[in-house]
């Protein structure tokens, strides 16, 4: 489905993406940590936003990639797409856990609690559990094509399920915990927005860079396994 020459070009493009993302993150961190003024209500703590929000966005991006990739795999049955899904789950677990941890650190000084049963937090925790289950499922299936199909089905069902989880937790929460803490976003000043934009763009580009690297890594791992098992016909490559 994806030809060799296209993959070569993508690989070259990926280097450029890595460099651009590095520059964006550098500018974003500089603006966010040095230039932006302290928040009126939260003080310095609001600067956690500049790592928390981009990581959370990258986590969502990874799950969208996983969903689209899974649909694409079931349609085309191309194992390089499966490598992409596998990679995006691995990178996704990383970004999701960091987003959860930094969110927790941010919640302590602002809401005076490490954890609250907010729909967004619960959906992220469930997302993390789905991704862990996804990777575990993959390690246990022996046949490569079966592994890819089962994993794709799981990813799609999880993606369909997550909105229901979000709404059910939201209903549940309005019933049991009156909204003493508003977790809705507040409008922020332009001086604070600029570094956020840079960080979100930078981390998203970094996500795609990491995704490509990990996809290539998984491809090579399978290639190495095939070569070690004597199941490599040179004409296929």
């Amino acid at each position, binding site marked *: 489905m994806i030809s*060799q020459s296209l*993959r*070569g070009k993508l*690989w070259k493009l990926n280097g450029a993406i890595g460099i651009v993302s*590095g520059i964006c993150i*550098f500018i974003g*961190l*500089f603006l966010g*940590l*040095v230039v932006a003024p*302290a928040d009126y*209500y*939260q*003080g*310095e*703590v609001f*600067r*956690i936003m500049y*790592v*928390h929000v981009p*990581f959370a966005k990258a986590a969502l991006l990874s799950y969208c990639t996983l969903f689209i990739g899974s649909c694409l795999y079931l349609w085309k049955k191309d194992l390089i797409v499966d490598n992409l899904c596998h990679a995006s789950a691995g990178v996704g677990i*990383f970004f999701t856990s*960091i987003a959860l*941890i*930094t969110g927790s*650190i*941010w919640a*302590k*000084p602002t809401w005076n609690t490490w954890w609250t049963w907010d729909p967004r937090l619960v959906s992220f925790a469930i997302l993390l559990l789905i991704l862990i289950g996804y990777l575990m499922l993959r390690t246990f299936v022996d046949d490569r094509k079966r592994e890819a199909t089962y994993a794709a089905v799981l990813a799609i069902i999880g993606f369909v399920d997550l909105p229901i989880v979000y709404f059910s937790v939201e209903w549940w929460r309005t019933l049991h915990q009156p909204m003493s803490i508003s977790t809705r976003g507040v409008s922020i000043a332009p001086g604070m927005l600029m570094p956020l934009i840079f960080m979100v763009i930078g981390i998203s580009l*970094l996500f795609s860079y*990491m995704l490509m*690297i*990990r996809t*290539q*890594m998984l491809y*090579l*791992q399978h*290639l*190495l396994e095939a*070569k*070690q098992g*004597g199941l*490599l016909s040179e004409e296929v490559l």
Partner: protein
Amino acid sequence: MKLGETQSLRAIYVRWAVIVIIAGVLTVLAVFRYNREVFAIPIETLLRNKPDGIVRILGQVSAGTLVKKGDGSAFFYLSSERKQTEVSVLYTGKPDDNLRDAKALVLTGFFDPDQMQFAAQKISPIPNSGFVVSAYLIALLPLILFLFSMERNLIRLSVLIKEERPYQKG
């Protein structure tokens, strides 16, 4: 795809060294930026040392002592975090919402040893910088390690694949 065409392990290490140096420079810049703002002394130290010039002190507005005047200036007692010592404060800056009963604050001003009173000109909320630093460390250090290990693994794999020979009889 021919892999890692121009890359080698040494190139990776050089690239990552550059990234780490840039990150270090950024950290140093951030630390300098914060030294101006973050450093505040507790009330006990203020009363004991009686420093000259502008200082920043940290404490909590003692409940029920706050008296606000019309022009925004205010008089109140500031107690230390364990509520053992207090110092009277005369605030003469702009009106500020953060000036509330039992609110923890950082005050900038100078100490008058004769009247044992602190004349505050500026009020700011507590920096909580420990949370910021830990959040950034927890986010960025694993990111760097993860990315580095993936890139190294990629090169290692391509080397392994080149070296791996298919099974031959005899």
